[in-house]
Every structure is written in structure tokens, then in C-alpha cells.
């Protein structure tokens, strides 16, 4: 059962153009009968509708083939407590969002710029139970602010989210985007080639997010992971360590998976060596490993995935070609993990430790595996949010040899 109550304020051209709120509750019912399983979901909570959903699930299940690998539902489990419900966020009003947007719009007007973005706040809760006595419940609040600041022909961007609306300051985010947009107005063109880059956390997030479904045991079993034949080998640089940790203070999400199994902390990469995978109950049984509590709700075709990634960071102050964020990232070669995409919203040349000017955006074609072998420096890890991947705790990175293959016109 999932309940979401959220509100969204959208602004563009320095004015609010939408303010919407939504409150919904869905009940999703999975049935198992004679080795067959299916699921039906409804948002009607009267008894007749709930009974109809059960009947729909049973009927769908009747049409499924028997699944010889289907496990009995788990019994009662014990969970670590996490507290991510912040009353201040839950009570944040439309007027408060509007006041914040007014301040950033005033900044844009003062600077001769145009602001657009969103400010959302809300809360959610979920409960999962089964007929074998398992019961799990979780609630959290969420707040997010994203802004694009334009100063023709340039633009820049900033974004943050947290369960605590006080964890970020929309005005500071707007000021940062404003400064970068102004700096990016006179962008010069550089020739494509290999450059040392500093990737801000959002840029790191949206790139490495394409790597993590490869840590699913089912993906390796299906031979569709870039980690096939590579587990236990020195694949990345020794300064790269990554874990999946839903209990990290900068993370969000429930401490149980889609079957109600408790999420474990898993060390995925240890000093550059992929060490461990995540396992749903079914994948664990097939591999004779303990389940890690990362399974998706059944039925599904993907098995499991790590959803609370945490990179170890460093404490270095970093210098190089500064990348604000990346855009439209797509996979070119799934085994070598070659990705393509664009830089966006601010690409700056850093010389002798100072930002000396903006440059035109590049297309990159870069293997993530090669990139993570050539990370020269790591900054402090922060909670990052982007557009291509779910949130993670990642550091800014200086990468020695990043491949920019082509340049665009702005």
C-alpha cells in the first residue's frame, strides 16, 4: 500500500505558472496459487473494489505459467529504524514555496536573467504485509528545488533534494546558477579531444547511475552485466569504493525491499575491485548466497538492483575543466560501458586554479570503466540529484582523460 501527498510549484519566465497538489493511495495485491503469481493494483478502497482487485490478481495468475523458481512469501522480519519524516517538510505550505520562488525570481530580474524551475514538497508512506505474518511500514518526507537560470545565449542550473526542506536554500542555489549563467555568456569554442575534467556531483551521478543495475545478481546470471567475467578483478582505480547503504544519513528510501525483506548494507566496490552483488530472494537461492534485501516487488523481470549508492569521497579541493552537469546520456557499448551524452548548463575552463571563462558544450563518448580507473582526485561526498539517475551520495571527481568527441553550437 502506497500513499503519496505532494505539492509542486512550477515557475518560468520569472513567474509561477502552475501550482498543483496530489493525494493518492494505491493498494497493490499479489496472489500466489498453485505455483502461479500475479498482481493487481487499485486506488479504490471500498471493500467491493478490494475484493475485485484480489479476484483480478487470481484471474491473472491463473493465466500465468507455473514458476518452478517461485519462493514462498517471506515470514515476519525485523527492520532497522530509519527516521526520515521531518514535520517541517510535511507542513511546508504553498505560500512558503511561493515566497521562495518570488525571491529567486527577484534575483533573476535584478540580474537581467530568466528563471525557471520547480519547488516540490510532500510526504509518502508505504506498508507491506502478507498472509504469512510479515508486516513492514515506512514513511518519509521529501523536498526538491531545481532552477535553470538563463542569460541569453547561456544557461546554468542547480538542484537539491532532501527529506528535510531546511537542508537546502533555494536562494543559494539560484545565486549559484545565476553566477554561472552570467559567466557562460561568452563561451568560446575548444577543439574536441581528451581533457582533464572536474565533474560536479550531479554530473558524476548521472553518469555512474548507468553502472549500478550491473551489480544485480540477475543481470550477471542473464549475461547482460558489464561485470560478467570481471568480479573480483581490479576494474577501477584504487580510490574508488562504493557501497549500497539505505541507512546512510544522506540517503532516503525504505529499509526493506519489494518483498519486505530487510535491506542490507553491501560493499559493492572495494578500492576499485567489484566485490559483491545484490540479491533478491530468488536470485540468492539460485546462487546459494544470502539475500541482501534489494529485490523488486514480484512479479518482475529484473530481479533486484542497488538503490542507495554511496561513494567514498575525499577531502581535496579540485581544479580542471569544470562540468556542471550532463544531459541525454545513453549507452553505446553495454559491456565496455561506453556512454554518450552532452555537457550542459555551464562548462568552464579552469586554468592555474581559477575559472577563466566558459566554453561551448561538448558531446562525450566515454567508457565508465575507463573513467573510474583515471579518477585523480575526489572531493567530499554529498547527496546529489540529477535528471538521469536516482539520487546517490557521490563526490565531485577530477578525471584525467575524459573524451569529448564533438562540439555543439552553444
Amino acid at each position, binding site marked *: 500500500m502506497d500513499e503519496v501527498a505532494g505539492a509542486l510549484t512550477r515557475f518560468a519566465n520569472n513567474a509561477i505558472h502552475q501550482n*498543483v497538489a496530489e493525494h493518492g493511495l494505491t493498494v497493490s495485491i499479489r496472489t500466489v496459487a498453485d505455483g502461479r503469481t500475479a498482481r493487481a493494483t487499485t486506488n479504490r478502497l471500498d471493500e467491493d473494489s478490494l475484493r475485485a482487485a484480489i479476484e483480478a490478481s487470481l484471474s491473472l495468475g491463473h493465466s500465468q505459467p507455473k514458476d518452478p523458481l517461485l519462493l514462498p512469501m517471506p515470514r515476519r522480519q525485523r527492520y532497522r529504524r530509519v527516521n526520515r519524516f521531518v514535520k517541517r517538510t510535511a507542513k511546508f505550505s504553498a505560500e512558503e514555496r511561493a515566497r521562495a520562488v518570488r525571491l529567486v525570481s527577484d534575483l533573476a530580474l535584478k540580474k537581467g536573467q530568466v528563471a525557471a524551475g520547480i519547488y516540490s514538497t510532500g510526504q509518502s508512506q508505504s506498508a507491506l504485509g502478507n498472509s504469512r505474518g510479515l508486516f513492514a511500514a515506512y514513511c518519509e518526507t521529501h523536498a526538491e528545488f531545481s532552477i535553470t537560470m538563463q542569460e541569453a545565449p547561456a544557461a546554468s542550473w542547480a538542484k537539491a533534494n532532501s527529506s528535510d526542506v531546511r537542508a537546502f536554500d533555494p536562494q543559494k542555489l539560484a545565486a549559484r546558477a545565476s553566477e554561472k549563467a552570467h559567466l557562460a555568456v561568452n563561451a568560446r569554442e575548444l577543439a574536441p579531444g581528451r581533457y582533464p575534467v572536474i565533474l560536479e556531483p550531479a554530473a558524476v551521478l548521472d553518469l555512474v547511475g548507468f553502472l549500478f543495475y550491473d551489480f544485480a545478481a540477475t543481470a550477471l546470471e542473464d549475461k547482460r552485466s558489464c561485470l560478467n567475467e570481471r568480479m573480483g578483478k581490479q576494474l577501477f582505480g584504487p580510490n574508488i569504493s562504493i557501497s549500497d547503504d539505505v541507512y546512510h544519513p544522506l540517503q532516503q528510501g525504505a529499509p526493506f525491499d519489494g518483498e519486505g525483506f530487510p535491506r542490507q548494507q553491501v560493499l559493492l566496490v572495494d578500492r576499485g575491485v567489484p566485490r559483491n552483488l545484490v540479491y533478491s530472494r530468488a536470485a540468492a537461492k539460485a546462487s546459494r548466497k544470502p539475500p541482501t534485501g534489494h529485490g523488486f516487488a514480484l512479479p518482475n523481470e529484473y530481479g533486484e538492483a542497488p538503490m542507495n549508492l554511496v561513494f567514498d569521497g575525499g577531502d581535496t579541493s579540485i581544479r580542471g575543466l569544470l562540468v556542471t552537469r550532463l544531459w541525454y546520456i545513453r549507452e553505446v557499448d553495454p559491456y565496455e560501458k561506453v556512454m554518450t551524452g552532452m555537457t550542459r548548463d555551464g562548462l568552464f575552463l579552469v586554468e592555474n586554479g581559477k575559472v577563466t571563462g566558459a566554453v561551448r558544450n561538448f558531446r562525450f563518448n566515454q567508457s565508465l570503466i575507463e573513467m573510474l580507473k583515471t579518477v585523480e582526485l575526489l572531493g567530499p561526498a554529498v547527496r546529489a540529484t540529477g535528471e538521469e539517475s536516482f539520487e546517490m551520495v557521490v563526490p565531485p571527481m577530477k578525471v584525467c582523460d575524459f573524451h569529448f*568527441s564533438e562540439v555543439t553550437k*552553444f
Partner: protein
Amino acid sequence: MAPDHGQGLGTFAYDDEGVPAQCTDIIKDGKFRGYLSNRETAHLVGLDRSSGTMRTESWNRLPIIRMTNVSLLPGTWDYGDLIADTQDGILMETNRSWSIDDRRYQFQFSTEIGWEIKSGKKVRMLKNPSYSGITTEFWNSCDAPRRAFCMSAIFAASLKRSFVSPNPPARRRQKFTWTKSRAP
């Protein structure tokens, strides 16, 4: 937008403002003709009425202006003649990844399979060739549009669950950048 060109994956009778579906020229004879619009913005782009492209993803989402069926109209060349007329080129089929910048200039698309064309014949097979370029330069280099339609449907990532139907006949372009992922 081509409801009178037959059924496409994005075909409908009325948009989510109740405006009848229409066929709107976006590019005609190589010239930009106009924008997609809704009832609120039509007058801003000099139109007397909405082009009927206001669409919502779901009952609980606000509609926005989105493309429906985007079609390139066919030319006069047969597919075999396109190949036979090409002295030195690459034929690529089945796109498998798409990436373009946020102003829709610089793009890169990867494909599943390709063939070198030498003196009008398909010769060596290529694995996962990619092609890239600048949109305006790319379309300006088209010199031989194919006669017949190729009906195809993709789910545009930016539209999530909405449907569109791009209908591009095969075309030849004189010069653009392609990269070979690896030879088979």
C-alpha cells in the same frame, strides 16, 4: 502531424483541449513553417487556432504541447536505387540509442547493424555503427529521399508513456560523421 496520412501510433481525433487533430507543416520545401501550439499559445505564434497538440500523459497530469505523428514526406527514389547510386557510403539500420543536446543541434545515434557501400553495392558488414552531426547541417545534406514510407514507432524517452510515431523514409546524406563501434 498527419492524421490524414493514415493511422500512426500517435493518432487521435481530438487533443486534450478538445481541438480536432490536424496536419501541420513544420518544415516545407526546406523552410521552417511553424510551431506546434495550444489554445493559449496559438496567437503568440501568429496562428488563428491551436494546432491541436495539447496532450496529457494521464488523467491526473496537466497537458502540455507535444508532438504526435512526426513524418518526413517521401521522395521519389526506390530503396535499391539509393544504394546503387551511392559510390562510397554506409547503410545503417535499426537505431538503438539516441542522444541530442538540449537545443537539438548536436546529436549522436547508434545503430545495430550497417554495411559499407562501394560502387553501388553493399559489401562489408559493420557492427553497431554510430552517426553524429549538427541537425541543421545533417538535414541540409539530404540529397535523395526514398519513395516509400517506412512505418516505425518508438517510445521517445522524454514522453515517457505517451505515444509518437516518427515515420521517416530512408534518405541519403552526403557528408556526416560516423563512427564504427567495432568490426564484426
